[in-house]
């Protein structure tokens, strides 16, 4: 991968002498993966173009293989990367201004080809020659999704033309979505038909999927979720903001929504799917008296409370009745009676076994940092067992 900014202004050599400077590149923009058709060299203030086959790109510049030519005069009518594309505005289908073409990404393995445009701050940093000091990951829009160039305003339109869309595989589209910024990503999803959008979204990584479902406009969201698999929505259940999930479930209709819930209860047989995310949690540095005050006005009082250390990490659980029996100045962390916990990916069977073996009433579920994210209660275990027996009966 090579950036346009790395090439512009570099010397062109012929037989170890400087011949001129590379100032621009012409492409045939209609092709889906356009190759460079001409390289523009500035020599003594005049612009000449050479075919890329006559030139070899090196790290220090470029080398001409012959000066016999053919050299062609600069043709205003061509599409040039520096003149017509670099620095231009990228807009979406609704003509909203988005971002700018900060750099252009090319592939130089066989032929010099245009791969995409860099719209991130990385492009700016690179062009200001600050990339040695500041490292930022580039944000690249692949060429395939650039729809059109507006020759009047110089704007670049992004969105998927239906024509190109048919050629892109959902997984390829998913890669594209993963690499884009939020705004561009949404504008692409909105421009797709619901079925392709749903397929592509399902292929993206969980973070991208989550971001898309969080931010998509309600109108588009309804269509997209209606085409998505129930299971993949269930997979996002605890990732997406609960209000949003409620909205999504509403858009899915009662029948499909209840299937999501069923998958959550049945299908994904893990502690994470079973846990309840609202639960009582106290800092272990509190003393009994303080805990007592906190509990005093609560009705009904919780049966057990999750205790954390100062850093939100789990210490254990404590039963409310034990608090009542303790010295009022004792710290909660010293009263912890149960230190068992599970990770959300632990299977339901193991969770049930734990409950049975240790006579638990409540079991905290923690994330990889050992921070509690939910609890499984004995009630949930009983429900689970009950559901299973029903299923067994049905069979």
């Amino acid at each position, binding site marked *: 991968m090579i950036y346009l900014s790395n090439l512009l202004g570099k010397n062109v050599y012929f037989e170890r002498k400087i011949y001129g400077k590379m100032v621009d590149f012409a492409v045939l923009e209609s092709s889906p993966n356009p190759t460079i058709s001409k390289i523009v060299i500035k020599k003594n203030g005049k612009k000449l173009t050479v075919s890329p086959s006559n030139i070899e790109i090196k790290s220090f510049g470029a080398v001409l293989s012959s000066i016999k030519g053919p050299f062609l005069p600069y043709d205003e009518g061509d599409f040039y990367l520096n003149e017509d594309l670099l*620095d*231009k505005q990228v807009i979406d289908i609704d003509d909203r201004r988005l*971002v700018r073409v900060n750099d252009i990404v090319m592939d130089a393995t066989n032929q010099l080809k245009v791969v995409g445009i860099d719209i991130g701050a990385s492009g700016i940093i690179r*062009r*200001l020659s600050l990339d040695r000091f500041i490292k930022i990951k580039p944000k690249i829009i692949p060429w395939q999704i650039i729809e059109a160039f507006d020759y009047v305003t*110089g704007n670049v339109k992004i969105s998927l033309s239906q024509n190109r869309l048919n050629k892109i595989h959902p997984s390829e589209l998913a890669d594209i979505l993963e690499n884009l*910024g*939020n705004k561009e990503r949404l504008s692409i999803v909105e421009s797709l038909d619901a079925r392709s959008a749903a397929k592509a979204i399902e292929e993206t990584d969980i973070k991208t999927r989550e971001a898309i479902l969080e931010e998509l406009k309600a109108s588009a969201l309804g269509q997209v979720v209606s085409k998505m698999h129930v299971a993949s929505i269930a997979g996002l259940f605890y990732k997406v903001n609960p209000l949003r999930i409620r909205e999504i479930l509403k858009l899915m209709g009662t029948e499909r929504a209840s299937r999501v819930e069923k998958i959550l209860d049945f299908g994904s047989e893990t502690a994470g799917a079973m846990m309840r995310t609202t639960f009582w949690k106290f800092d272990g540095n509190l003393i009994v008296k303080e805990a007592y005050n906190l509990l005093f006005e609560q009705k009904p009082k919780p049966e057990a409370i999750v205790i954390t250390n100062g850093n939100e990490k789990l210490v254990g659980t404590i039963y409310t009745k034990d608090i009542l029996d303790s010295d009022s100045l004792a710290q909660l962390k010293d009263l912890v009676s149960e230190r068992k916990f599970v990770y959300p990916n632990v299977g339901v069977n193991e969770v049930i076994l734990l409950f049975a073996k240790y006579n638990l009433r409540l079991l905290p579920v923690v994330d990889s940092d050992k921070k509690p994210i939910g609890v499984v209660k004995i009630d949930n275990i009983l429900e689970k067992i009950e559901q299973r027996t029903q299923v067994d009966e049905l069979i």
Partner: protein
Amino acid sequence: MNLFKRKFVTLLPILAIMGPGIIAASADNDAGGITTYSVAGAQYGHSLLWVLLLTTLALSITQEIGARMGLVTGKGLASLIREKFGIKWTAFVMGVLFIANLGTIAAEFAGIAAAFEIFGVSKFISVPIAVIGMFLLVTKGSFKRLERIFLLFSFFFIAYAISAFTLKPDWGSAFSSLIMPHIEFDKGYILTLMALIGTTITPWGQFFIQGYVVDKKLTKDDLKIERGDVFLGSFITNLIAFFIIITTAGALFAHGIQINDAKDAAIALKPFFGEFAVILFAFGLLNASLFGAAIVPISTSYVITEAFGMESGLNYKFKQAPEFYALFAISLILGGLLVLTPFLPLITILVVSQAINAVLLIPVFIFLYLLSNDRKILGEYANNKIMNIIVLLTLMGISFTAVFYVVSTMFPNLF
């Protein structure tokens, strides 16, 4: 009360159709504006009035160019610079703009501080509150409504006109000073002259007018109306400046009173408003400063994010356009901090920041000149000769004044 209410209601639609030119021009008469005009009148009487005639002309033409480029291309000035001159020049101009705007923002907060100091509130209390308040007001509130309220209260400036007539100044002298240029080879005089230019014609105003026209989605068909709007705005700005200078000249210069803090500047309104003048002035200064403090920082982040192709706009959430909000916050905070710097009197900040603005206009106008003559961009709407002559004369005028200032500081006894 009833009558007032009815009047208020009939005024609203007029405010609603007020164009970008009028808004830009009203925001021009901000804290720095009021102070610079007051100091000019108090210190040098009528002798700087001639500058106003020239700045009216220069402001009308440069604002017209900005509006025209916006109408024809549908792009802001920063966009055009970026697309024509590439990222390095853009970075340079944005650096210049940021420094100039920081000065202006500092001036707005200095105005707020000065207004509160009249009532004995320390700047260490008023400025931090204003910084936080502005951030919340602009990001959480309705910007358009805010703008209209400030505009409405800009009618405060009528007080100067009333005062001017009550003072019965020597109109003959005023009008002859308006037409006859007069130069004093004195550091203070030249600095005030530069500040007069820099407070009327500003780098941010140039970016603002073009951005506003683009935002309103005006097209070539609106050119005639927009021209009228811009010319009217420029005229009003300078008419107000004229009255401020006349009143301060009559009320302060004639009695040998100098302006050391905002209270002194309020004396200009005493002839008609008596003891009420101080409160009226404080209110007017506060309104003008708040107007500026609302508009300049947010326009800074609009322009810079636009130039560098970052997502921008108040309709984005913080997470979606972090650079936009960060820039807004940084310019507010830095501007506020400049005011709180010890040993810098508020009046000095207010005047010097305007003079710096004038100097920083030079690079901005060079790009404006080049772009507005580019037929590839503007086609038949490119500048005509008269416009070019005025822009070039403005550029030369500012440059000469700046050089003059440096020379007069280094060799005070040259003439």
